[in-house]
């Protein structure tokens, strides 16, 4: 049995997103396993980023349920009970269920602990690398500063928390190899470093699920390999599961445990990388042939 069926972290059920008459995502269901790197792939315009925006609260899906689990897996049994209540989340000792489709975007990150990066990098370019990582720890620091009041008075509790936040930023600077550029504005970094910084910034929110929208776009093969190492490290060391959209097959096939393929908003394949790679429907979607010709094309590709 696959891990995403056995120990799912995130469950999408019957997700549909319509923009006027356009159906961007059509009745999509899949789950992402805890500790897995799940890749969401598909041709351009397949609706991948829309799915991401639904998960992270930037879009409200037209229909469907997106549920995320914290803690023990048993809590899934209470999903229907939680859905029946009007609450956005159900939290009890050692476990929690979050109904992401009901949450506004900032709560998805603040409470459900789902962090994301963007297809076109969204760093705070006028702030330094270090400041970018500190802004990401906003909610923790806000509590420590007694919602600014205690911080303004300069109480030691806040100063300790601030020191800890800088230590955490240093830890991530070390991981992404940007320690020397900590005091430079983020907008001055080369493209590859900006991609890494955006991932580190998302990780500073201590997520359980990290959603990466095309993290390897525009990277050279060497940077791509570094990114693979970084993502595998995040899964091993930090125990954060990853959901990523990617076109770069070297990244997808090398690091992911589970691949979901979308085409025209519908799921066409779902499984381990090897299974998906050989799925005739996927080959057809990517090469653009009709179903009857698939076998011929497949033979050609494999030979």
């Amino acid at each position: 049995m696959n891990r995403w069926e056995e120990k799912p972290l995130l469950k999408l059920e019957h997700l549909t997103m319509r923009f006027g008459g356009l159906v961007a995502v059509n009745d999509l269901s899949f789950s992402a396993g805890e500790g897995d790197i799940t890749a969401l792939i598909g041709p351009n315009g397949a609706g991948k980023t829309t799915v991401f925006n639904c998960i992270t609260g930037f879009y409200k899906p037209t229909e469907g349920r997106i549920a995320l689990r914290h803690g023990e897996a048993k809590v899934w049994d209470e999903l229907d009970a939680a859905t029946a209540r009007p609450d956005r989340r159900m939290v009890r000792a050692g476990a929690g269920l979050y109904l992401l489709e009901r949450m506004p975007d900032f709560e998805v990150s603040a409470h459900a602990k789902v962090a994301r990066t963007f297809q076109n990098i969204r760093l705070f370019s006028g702030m330094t690398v270090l400041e970018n990582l500190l802004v990401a720890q906003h909610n923790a620091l806000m509590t420590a500063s007694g919602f600014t009041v205690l911080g303004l008075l300069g109480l030691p509790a806040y100063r300790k928390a601030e020191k800890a936040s800088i230590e955490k930023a240093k830890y991530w600077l070390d991981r992404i190899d940007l320690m020397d550029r900590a005091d430079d504005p983020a907008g001055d970094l080369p493209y590859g470093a900006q991609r890494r910084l955006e991932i580190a910034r998302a990780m500073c929110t201590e997520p359980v699920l990290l959603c990466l929208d095309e993290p390897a776009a525009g990277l050279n093969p060497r940077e791509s390999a570094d990114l693979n190492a970084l993502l595998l490290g995040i899964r091993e060391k930090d125990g954060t599961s990853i959901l990523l959209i990617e076109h770069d097959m070297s990244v997808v096939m090398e690091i992911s445990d589970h691949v979901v393929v979308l085409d025209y908003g519908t799921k066409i394949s779902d499984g381990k990388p090897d299974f998906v790679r050989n799925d005739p429907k996927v080959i057809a979607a990517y090469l653009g042939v009709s179903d009857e010709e698939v076998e011929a094309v497949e033979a050609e590709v494999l030979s």
Partner: protein
Amino acid sequence: MANETQTGGRSVDIGHAAKDALLAGLIALGLFGVFIGLQTVQDISNRLVLKVRPEALAVIVGIIVVGRFLLNVFVWGREPSHKAAVASPSGGLLGMFKRLCFLVGVVVTLVAVVDIGFRLAGGALPNMPISPPGTMGLGSIILIEAVAALFGVVLIAFGQNMTERAAALLGPAGIGFLAAFPIIAILGAGWGGSLKWIDNFGIQILIYVMLGWGLNIVVGLAGLLDLGYVAFYAVGAYSYALLAKEFGLSFWILLPLAGILSAFWGIILGFPVLRLRGDYLAIVTLAFGEIIRMVLVNWVDFSGGYAGISGIPRPTLFGIPFNATDEGFAARFGLEFSPIYRTIFLYYLILCLALLTAFVTVRMRRMPVGRAWEALREDEIACRSLGINTTNTKLTAFALGAMFGGFAGSFFSARQGFISPESFTFIESAQILAIVVLGGMGSLYGVVIAAVVLVGGFEIMRELDFLKQIFGNDFDPALYRGLIFGASMVVIMLWKPRGLISTRTPTAFLKERKTVSGDLVKEGHG
């Protein structure tokens, strides 16, 4: 000529400098030979007689030769250092002050030197602003002006050599100057004449500095374009005026109360409108400012309408009023009564309020909420993806900015003793916004410089009476304020589109605090 001297590590070619100075002297001799060397005088029988004045000519040419030589050696001789300063990021505070020092130094030196020349030549510049009036002898006037010229040269040299460390002292030095300003004004302009300087310049500029710093939180840090800031100023002013008159509460109770009321109005306005962005937010805040004013105009029972509110109680020094009674400040301290005590008291009051605004802004920037404001200005969507509640963050910025506007408003009505809706028109909002934008969004020093230039410049225009001698008696320079204001705005926006001080200082650093160029800092669209 190989006699090169090392000054500050750079070589200056003395020979070349001397040659250049002599050439300038020759040109001056040719130009001034006729203008100053010759004078036509009417003798007793009304005949024009040509008088030759070699001494005056020699003095003028001498000043030009020496001046040119000094400039060559100390200013232009340092071309390499100048280039280095340009190559390094000089857009910041340091570069700004360097240029300011250079400019002021050149102007002071030139005016003093030219006036010395004129006086020696027998005349004087009409209404010299720096020449002391009265019956002083020519010798002492020239001495004073020579000192002024020397001061100018020192300023130029200082501007050229200013280091980061010297720039770090600018803040304390500026506060020291502001604290000493009333004393300087009294020493400089006398007991009676200083009133104008402390009131029209000191207090007036500080009110705008404070308003600029308050609006800077909203526009400069959080990136929310607020065109109706004067509404909060009005709320503060009317809160003080009405509560003090109706309930007889003291200034010290009403000051925080006015701030809280303004912040409250900020939140009331903020809740519905802060989901708007950019132009839409600007329009709604503009409308809000006008609504407040219209209510004040039309709700006559409440606010007195156009007639406004007069007889507003003046602030007291812990219960001691500033009046001519036996209980008054002057009588208590055994001084002769003078209105200047109240003015000085008000000056220090607004200085403290303004410094409080600056202090809170500086501290807030290092708090998580302050960083969130700046992050919000940079990229709102990224903020939301990091779990920052953008509505609350915007509201805090809006409320805090409004609170300082309310403080300034209650000070304003306490100082004036009379308020009416006329004081809270859109043009006030525009001027405060202009101060923030010209100063460089987010920069406290920039706001001060812009307020001094815009508000102080306006006041100076009233003083330029000597222009009447040039353009005739009907000429009123104050009428051209709008024109000059607009033109200077256009010039500054062309020359420095991101404001006078366009760099951003990071709020945290690991090894060194590097300033961030304004090109990378976003302006905010919501």
